[in-house]
């Protein structure tokens, strides 16, 4: 059954990708990209990667699509006729694709339990991590503990993204006269959003702290919390959102999250272990792992929330500016 669903979803994905190639209406392209993201997240669920699906749905279909829409609002909806020749790109793509197909021929068969991937390194994560780290969610164990350095890098990547966006766009405080932004005429939307937003923030907190036991964690929680505020800003307008959390504050928050993460590493060095060695954080190694993971997940959550919201602010304030002019 899983294989059948997989096949149907893959077919839908292939059709969507093909359609995107030929569409000239960029709004439709972005909508289909949102669908593409949704579909690939479904495939991830189907292939047992629930944490990944969580992230892909909230990031790919949520944040990326919203950012693309805001960009389109400023750059226009129509793709003009290209003067480039299509022969060379097609040739490059065919060669690359042929190389990949050639590479697949010696691949281990799909889903076979004897594949090298399942024989080396991973068995320890599956068998030992519940004992060594003490969490039922192996993905969180590997993410936060075994490969905690990667995750620190990931947090820094997000942080560098906000540095880039802020240096390019900046967030300008909007003036009094354009307070009338937002979807003023949609009264039902106002009411419903105000009901939903607290629930979403509650859900984000649940995802943040339940990530050790089920799908979720700092990254997903940060994105969902940011999504709640983005909804608020979309419906009520940026100035009102600025009044709740200002862009300058978010900038500090983003930095603070990275520092919180890194400080766990420094503290473990001070305690005599290696960088990010959570075993040293408490007398009992398992408890130490717990403390370490909770703190670093919090750091990730804070940074991701602040960065995603600040990026949206930067795009949004640009859009409002170009709209006024």
């Amino acid at each position: 059954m899983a294989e059948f669903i997989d096949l149907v979803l893959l077919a839908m994905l292939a059709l969507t990708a093909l359609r995107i190639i030929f569409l000239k209406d960029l709004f439709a392209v972005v909508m289909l990209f949102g669908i593409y993201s949704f579909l690939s997240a479904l495939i991830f669920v189907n292939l047992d990667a629930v944490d990944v699906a969580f992230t892909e749905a909230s990031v790919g279909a949520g944040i990326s699509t919203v950012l693309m829409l805001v960009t389109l609002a400023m750059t226009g909806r129509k793709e003009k006729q290209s003067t480039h020749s299509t022969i060379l790109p097609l040739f490059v793509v065919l060669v690359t694709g042929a190389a990949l197909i050639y590479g697949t021929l010696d691949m281990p068969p799909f889903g076979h339990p004897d594949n090298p991937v399942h024989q080396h390194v991973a068995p320890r994560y599956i068998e030992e991590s519940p004992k060594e780290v003490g969490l039922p969610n192996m993905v969180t164990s590997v993410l936060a503990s075994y490969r905690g350095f990667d995750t620190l890098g990931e947090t820094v990547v997000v942080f560098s993204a906000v540095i880039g966006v802020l240096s390019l766009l900046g967030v300008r405080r909007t003036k009094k006269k354009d307070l009338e932004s937002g979807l003023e005429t949609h009264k039902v939307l106002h009411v419903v959003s105000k009901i939903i937003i607290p629930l979403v923030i509650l859900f984000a907190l649940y995802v943040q702290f339940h990530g050790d036991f089920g799908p979720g964690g700092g990254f997903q929680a940060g994105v969902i919390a940011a999504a709640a505020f983005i909804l608020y800003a979309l419906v009520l307008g940026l100035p009102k959102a600025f009044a709740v959390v200002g862009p300058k504050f978010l900038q500090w928050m983003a930095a603070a999250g990275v520092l919180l993460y890194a400080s766990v590493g420094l503290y473990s060095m001070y305690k005599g272990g290696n960088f990010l060695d959570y075993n040293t954080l408490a007398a009992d190694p398992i408890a130490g792992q717990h403390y370490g993971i909770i703190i670093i997940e919090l750091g990730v959550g804070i940074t991701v929330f602040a960065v995603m919201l600040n990026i949206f602010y930067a795009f949004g304030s640009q859009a409002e500016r170009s709209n006024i002019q």
Partner: protein
Amino acid sequence: MLEQHLTALPIILPLIAAPIALILGRSVLSWGFATLASGLAFLFSWQLLSAALSEGVISYAVGGWAPPWGIELRVDAANAFVLLAVTAISTLVLVYSKDSIEKEVKAANHSLFYTAHLLCLAGLSGILITGDAFNLFVFLEISSLATYTLVSLASDRRCLTAAFRYLVMGTIGATFILIGVGLLYMKTGTLNMMDLAVRIDAYDSSRTINTGLAFIMVGVSIKLALFPLHMWLPPAYTHAPSAVTAFLASTATKVAVYVMIRFIFTVFGIDHVFVDMGMGLILMALAVVAIFKCSYMATVQSNVKTVLAYSSVAQIGYMILGLSLVSVTGLMASMIHIFNHALMKGALFMAVGAVFYRVGSVDIKAFAGLGRKMPLTMAAFTIAGLSIIGVPLTAGFVSKWYLVTAALEQGNWTVAALVLIGSLFAIVYIGRILEAAYFQKLPESRSSENIKEISWLMLVPMWVLVIANIYFGVDTSLTTEAANSASEWLFQTNNILENNMVEGNSQEVSS
């Protein structure tokens, strides 16, 4: 305590310093702080190099998890040597950038600039030190994102399109590396480079591994701007702020060359890459074309930054040529050239940035008569230019010398001759600029302008690099010792791994 964590510090230090530099906010504060952090990283990497030279290899398990399960940081002579160059250049450029940036970047973005610089440094150090193939990708992206930001900070609008093109190419390159690493992982089940090396040999002829090798090579080639994939580099270097160009030209591509060396010599093994796949000939051909095509392009440009950017692509050709000779001397020539070229290009771009600071243009016409107005800057430019050409007593001579020696060792007269002919082009493009600076008069229209020597804050780092150029041209003991042990180390590990493979196979057969 520091001794124990020496391996991790060059990454962690700039990584933690970056958010603090953002919080500091004020331009001067974050400048001082960033310089301090970078300087400390330089000191640590100096110690790291001496430790690596005496101990051979230093391994550090992040999080206390043993290598194939956790992420390993692994330092040997090769990466400690490149790391030393990267941190040194970063510190010097930061000192230099305080004045340079004031002219070229909006005041509101100054602390963002220093933050991005630190992030870029952290990314580059991470790429160099990590011993884990996926961790390398993460740090590659940190440094790339910071680089796109840095390039787009200039005030000229063309920096935006340059940065965008760089972003698209760079992301394609990174995704190719991701595909390649995925294919390797699929076949071996591991991401640790040493572990990969041991396990890849068991699958030597596998099509999946070969495809993975091809994708990693193409991806890294984009990042290091190997000839047909170099199109992003000239615009990016031309339109970025001068301090950024000085930093990137002397570090980013070098680090990518190191990644290529690491993958070829440690992960895949020489026999696999050069004998089975025949990559040696391809790399050599591309390198030779790069040297000639891009040296020629450099001679016909009118923007001096573009001239130097094309020259960089050509110089990368020399590095690839060295490693494609597959000998200890050839690899050593590559390593020396990575180091020396960082010194030369750093000094040259700093000098050009100084000219932009005073004159406001880097067109070759703007250099007319500057020999008198800015004597120290132009003297620095001249010496570094001579080093690019490869005049004796400069660092450039040393790297070319070893390259030619390596070619002659194998009786490869053609390559040796090509290297020497390539240098002739360098005489032309450096000569054009020097001619304008020393033998042309400052045009009447500009004589009223107050063009004078730049501040010592910009001159000192520039001259430190120039003196280093001369020093390493005269006293070659440090560079050759480090490069030689790096290159021998790489060949040694390669041999050990290949022997291991033979033993491992026989064990498998017997069991």
